[in-house]
């Protein structure tokens, strides 16, 4: 691990389609995120925040520019190498929870460990610990259909945490939840961030963004403004 920043975007561009139908979603994004930050990415639809998150999550590659993650230039990696990067260092939480249906909470949380080739007993243990961490230990044997939205999102967070990733990427994690559940999820994320995990979260709700220490605002495919040190406000909100 080099001493540099955890994540570094330099002049990132992304174009979808070709020729006349081409659409430039990102027009040169520069962004540096350090280890331990809690970053909220905001902006109107089409501002490029989701595209940026996909690139940060190593799910997509930029058309141009340099994306360094832990000093590695991700845009040079192939599909499988990026998969290995996600498996090793990244955890994902989605707006729609994206749990496997008809599969228990415990098995959902175990899933990333299966791809890591961990033994069954070790998987069980780690998955139980992650579920306890999000306060869902007693619900381990329930399937998503038997859980509330807030509980499902907690399972998703436990699944993201179980591999002890460097970065947690959350795409509108409270988008499908009522305000009370949303606050619970945000407090959980805050707590995890305090324990050392770097969090990148896309949201379009100002009061959710307020829980983050840094807010990055996107507009028209560019970073419009970066607001650091917003944490104090969040503390008072909590």
């Amino acid at each position, binding site marked *: 691990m080099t001493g540099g920043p955890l994540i570094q975007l330099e002049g990132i561009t992304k174009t979808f389609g070709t020729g006349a139908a081409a659409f430039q979603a990102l027009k040169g994004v520069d962004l540096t995120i350090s280890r331990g930050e809690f970053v909220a990415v905001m902006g109107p639809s089409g501002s490029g925040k989701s595209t940026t998150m996909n690139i940060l999550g190593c799910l997509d590659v930029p058309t141009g520019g340099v994306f360094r993650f832990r000093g590695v230039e991700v845009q040079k990696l192939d599909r499988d190498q990026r998969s290995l990067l996600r498996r*090793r260092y990244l955890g994902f939480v989605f707006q729609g929870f994206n749990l496997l249906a008809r599969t228990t909470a415990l098995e959902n949380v175990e899933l990333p460990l299966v791809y890591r080739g961990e033994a069954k007993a070790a998987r069980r243990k780690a998955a139980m610990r992650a579920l306890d961490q999000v306060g869902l230990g007693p619900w381990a044997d329930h399937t998503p259909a038997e859980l509330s939205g807030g509980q499902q999102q907690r399972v998703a967070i436990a699944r993201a945490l179980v591999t002890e990733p460097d970065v947690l990427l959350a795409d509108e994690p409270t988008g499908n939840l009522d305000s009370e559940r949303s606050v619970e999820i945000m407090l959980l994320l805050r707590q995890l961030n305090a324990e050392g995990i770097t969090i990148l979260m896309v949201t379009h709700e100002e009061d959710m963004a307020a829980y983050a220490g840094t807010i990055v605002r996107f507009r028209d495919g560019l970073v419009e403004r970066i607001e650091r040190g917003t944490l104090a406000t969040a503390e008072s909100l909590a």
Partner: protein
Amino acid sequence: MLGTTILLALREIRRHILRSILTTLGIIIGVAAVVTMVTLGNGVTASVQEEISSLGASNFIVFPVRTTRGTIRPFDEDDVRAVEQQIAGVKLAAGSVGASTTAFNNGQDWDTRVQGVNNAFFEAQSIDIEDGRAFSTDEEAGGKNVCLLGTKVREAIFLPTVSPVGSQMRLGDVSCQVIGLVEERGQGGGGSDDDDTVYMPLKTVQRRFRGNDNLDYFVVKYDAAYAAPVIQDSLVGLLRERRLLQGEEPNDFNVIDTAQVNQALGAATGALTAMVAVIASISLLVGGIGIMNIMLVSVTERTREIGIRLAIGALAREVRLQFLTEAVVLCALGGLAGIALAFVASFGLASAIDVPFVFDPVINIVSFMFAASMGIVFGYYPASRASKLDPIDALRHE
């Protein structure tokens, strides 16, 4: 990892149990058809072979035929000994002569036939003696009045409760002592019924029933390690020489190879099996296309799941392996069901057409492996399609 993948596949199949059964029906029927046919074919072959073995395996049967001049020149014991001693690969040769007669005992009479043979004939024809003993050297050489009974003769003129061995009976006007019983053989070759026969030493029948030294025919048992055509050629050559047949003169005798009869029957069942294999392979092809279709449906249905797996770091080949495993497990289960069905069907059909049920492990294992490998062939394209999905699109899929 593979264990987990197989469990996952089984769970997926159980979730869509009806769909899975319908999909694998083509494979079940194909495998069942092939295994049933081969099993029944084996049964038919076995029962035919059993029939033929009453002629003796690896045997030639040699008998005189009428020449163009209308005469029959019979063989005698000198010919038999010459064959036995002068032809390489011949284990033994034994003559036989028969006559119609009536057996009398205990006030009963029974029309039957007497066959004059020596012990070598029993050996060549695999005839076992069930009770009592075979002929002694003295009895053979001296043409003594001793006899062995077939089961039908015994039933006809002796009480079922007492062994006839040792008792005296009469054949026509010849008195003889029963020294043994011959095992039940069923319908023998050449139209005669081995069970409805009384065996006496060759010399006895020649002297007392036929009044000459002629043989009706003789059997030649050869070593299966030798090439039958070679032995047959030297046999024919030797006999022609002994019968003074010149150059173009046709044989006035006939040699039948029981192994050839065997092969001809084997070829017939083989042709039938091949025909069923063609029909079954069409069923399997249709079944395989069904598997491909259902796997493509499954990949589409589970696009989101694939997206989740890819997002959390599954490699393309791991996703491919998952779907490939599912197709293989599905096909393998179809194969197992087909084998089970074939077991029941061939067991039932075997007893219906009265052939033995001969379980053939090779065809069962081969069919199973074939069914499982169909999963690889027809599951590869859907699995590879799943593995190539874009994780972002897959996650957005509704």
